[in-house]
């Protein structure tokens, strides 16, 4: 019988109290990076689940931005500050957009998919930068979040938001892990390898890709809401191509072998950037580029391949096939 939780899910479950306990151990600046990394890590997860189907989204910033702006506008226009409602609004808006766009995007693969996602995200960028009511290039600030009517202040507010980020992010990572192990997740792997055969086995590649695209959009929008609340600000840069490229960078750097990989990869990249800027303020991008180059050359399956077991699990049903469900 399949265990209810696999090893990845157990690790994520164990990670929740561990990360929360870090509140009492790590300095505030590191906690800030952890919190921001978890938010953007969700978007990288969105990119990663699409990569498992062989699709590279160069426009995932779209949903990151949609989440952030939805939360911000809900606050500005309707005085909504409840974090749960803001997340819900972000998800609903992104689902509506991704459901609509999905009918177009699911027909394209490879570079065409990448460019189309990029194009759509840049359309939003153009709209936001030229709309004064939405703050144009400056964006606008978000109100402090409340929690079912409770408005914490000072350090309590920081800690509450940190916890409110850790729990949903790790829970979503668990759900995505389950999604990758599900029949649709398997079909995605198969689509990447041979779409014709998938159709001849009786499954719709378009449908699977559409579902995955919407799933990635929803997850990315939650990342956008949490990130925007932690920063307290949204601006059009969230959907700029550089931001979307950053998420692709993380996914390649961390690998697609496991849902934990993008979360770790995001944090690693944030810290790397801090040290790179500190080391070489004018050419820090060159350091990141070098790391990327070395990763592609020596770890083509990303940093997660360092953790992955080389030997395949026995296939008695207790463990998933390594190649189609990650390690």
């Amino acid at each position, binding site marked *: 019988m399949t265990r209810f939780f696999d090893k990845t899910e157990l690790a994520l479950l164990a990670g929740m109290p561990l990360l929360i306990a870090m509140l009492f151990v790590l300095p505030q600046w590191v906690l800030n990076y952890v919190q921001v990394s978890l938010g953007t890590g969700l978007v990288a997860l969105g990119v990663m689940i699409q990569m498992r189907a062989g699709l590279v989204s160069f426009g995932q910033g779209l949903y990151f931005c949609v989440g952030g702006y939805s939360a911000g506008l809900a606050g500005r226009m309707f005085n909504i500050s409840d974090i749960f409602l803001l997340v819900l609004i972000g998800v609903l808006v992104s689902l509506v957009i991704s459901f609509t766009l999905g009918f177009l995007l699911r027909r394209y693969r490879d570079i065409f998919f990448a460019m189309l996602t990029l194009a759509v995200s840049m359309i939003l960028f153009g709209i936001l930068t030229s709309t004064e009511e939405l703050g144009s290039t400056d964006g606008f600030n978000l109100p402090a979040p409340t929690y079912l009517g409770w408005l914490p202040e000072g350090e309590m507010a920081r800690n509450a938001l940190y916890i409110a980020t850790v729990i949903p992010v790790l829970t979503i990572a668990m759900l995505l892990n389950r999604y990758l192990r599900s029949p649709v997740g398997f079909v995605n792997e*198969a689509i990447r390898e041979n779409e014709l055969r998938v159709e001849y086995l*009786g499954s719709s590649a378009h449908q699977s890709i559409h579902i995955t695209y919407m799933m990635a959009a929803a997850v990315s929008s939650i990342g956008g809401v949490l990130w925007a609340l932690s920063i307290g600000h949204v601006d059009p840069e969230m959907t700029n191509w550089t931001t979307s490229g950053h998420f692709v960078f993380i996914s390649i750097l961390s690998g697609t072998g496991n849902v934990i990989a993008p979360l770790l990869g995001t944090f690693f990249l944030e810290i790397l950037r801090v040290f790179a800027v500190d080391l070489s303020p004018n050419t820090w991008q060159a350091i990141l580029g070098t790391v990327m180059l070395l990763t592609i050359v020596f770890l083509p399956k990303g940093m997660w391949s360092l953790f992955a077991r080389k030997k395949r699990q026995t*296939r008695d049903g207790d463990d998933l096939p390594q190649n189609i469900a990650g390690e």
Partner: protein
Amino acid sequence: MTTVLETKNLEKTFGAVVAASDINITINEGEVLGVIGSNGAGKTTFVNMVTGHLTPTAGQILYRGRDITGKATRDITRMGICRSFQIPQLFPELPVIDNILIALTIAKHDKPVIFRPAIDRSLATEAHALLSRFAIDQYADQEIQTLPQGVRKLVDIAMATVAEPDLLFLDEPTSGVSADEKMDFMRNLLAALKSTKTAVLFIEHDMEIVEAFSPRCVAFYEGTILADGPTRNVLQNDKVREFVIGSELHRGSANDSALEGVN
């Protein structure tokens, strides 16, 4: 005998090129049918039309009396018509067992299922049982791209059978298999399918194989059916000898014992 498939005046054109014309074929339950014809005769076009990969320009395809003309490939597969390919269509970077598990997973879920694990112990057992039936369980953990062509062919065919189809098309199942192994290959293959009551249509260039394993044969020539009937009659048909087989009609080692193995 129950008719599984009936095509009526099936036609496919690509611009001015007529790939298939006036194709009328009836296939009955459990029947083994060989299809012969030179390259470009319309054999694979016929299979592509029936399986939904190509939409016929004209004509009708009836599956158990139901019109399936122009339906999507996946819907036709779900109804019970499956196929293997001349060039195996597999998931090359995945091991054999993963290929089978994907096929089984898709076969068992006709609606998208998310958040529920696709694989459990029983599915894994089922996958190994299928590989054993085709005598390729020893390759379970090997990646497809590392396997010889004959094994790939068997994996391709095994994947086509996971949904327990009523009708199975095998597109040149022995191509890429060495001449010495062809007979055994087909014998094992049809023996593996025998218990499933599946009607099998196989496209083949080797007349020995056709004569040995298919009681009925259809000969294609330039997109039309030249002859359809008992295999020996078709192979002795003058037009078939002239246009399809040429002067090299192989008889050699074809024997009744091989045929008995199927029937």
